[in-house]
């Protein structure tokens, strides 16, 4: 699936999105319901949101933890990701307890978002 421009540009209120909100919603539905595409999208989102240098989509293991041992993210990174996820998917991660499950890996985050996104529809 071609995800087009970077997630940040597409999701964070670029003029094109404002004009074609319905198309974007359809595209988001497609991404969320395709686990592989969602996983790739989330990796892009993580790199973009946290401005990670020297990290590529291919370089992120979908099963590796996002914090500490895996990607080595910290608490401020978690807060930044929570805001990005809420803006893009309208999915809320309230606190560390929920975050521990959601950020266990990119795969876990994809599953978490799929569940919450579809519940919220």
């Amino acid at each position, binding site marked *: 699936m071609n995800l087009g421009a970077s997630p940040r540009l597409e999701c964070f209120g670029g003029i094109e999105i404002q004009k074609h909100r319905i198309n974007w919603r359809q595209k988001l539905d497609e991404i969320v319901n395709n686990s592989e595409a969602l996983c790739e999208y989330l990796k892009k989102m993580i790199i973009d949101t946290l401005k990670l240098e020297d990290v590529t989509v291919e370089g992120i293991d979908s099963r590796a933890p996002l914090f500490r041992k895996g990607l080595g993210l910290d*608490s*401020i990174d*978690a*807060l*930044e990701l*929570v*805001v990005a996820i*809420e803006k893009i998917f309208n999915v*809320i*991660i*309230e*606190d*560390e*307890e*929920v*975050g521990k499950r959601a950020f266990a890996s990119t795969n876990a985050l994809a599953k978490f978002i799929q569940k919450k996104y579809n519940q919220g529809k």
Partner: protein
Amino acid sequence: MQWVETEETVRFNEVDEWGMAWYGHYMAWFEVGRISLLRRFDLLPRQIVDLGYVAPVISLKCDFKNPAASDDRIIIRTTAVKSEIAALTFKFEILLKENRALLARGETTQVLLTTNKKMIYRLSGELERRINNLVDYCLQDVAAQVATKAPRHKE
């Protein structure tokens, strides 16, 4: 941007062998500034605990521009920064009172944990209301000060 100003005097015991205020004391002065700002919005450390939270500092930076000397009167300026994330960021400036020369400039960031040490990712309820009041106050244009009265210190 609205800054809150507090005055202090550099004490003899805060000066190092070279006659300059020891760098670590600037953090204590930041704390004086932060408390004087937080007091106005019922966000003193014990009041945050009463709401069920603690707010540890996770990041601190400070640039030293000019040294302060013993018995100097200094002004500590503090403001809060608007943040999309559930964190509290303050900016500080320390000036020499006599000519308002900049001595140091710093910034701290605090995250919020529940009192049983669980980090919160989103602000809510009374804590959110008080933090929003604080940030809105600090975001005010200084020109708008005439029209907007700062909350008074509750004694």
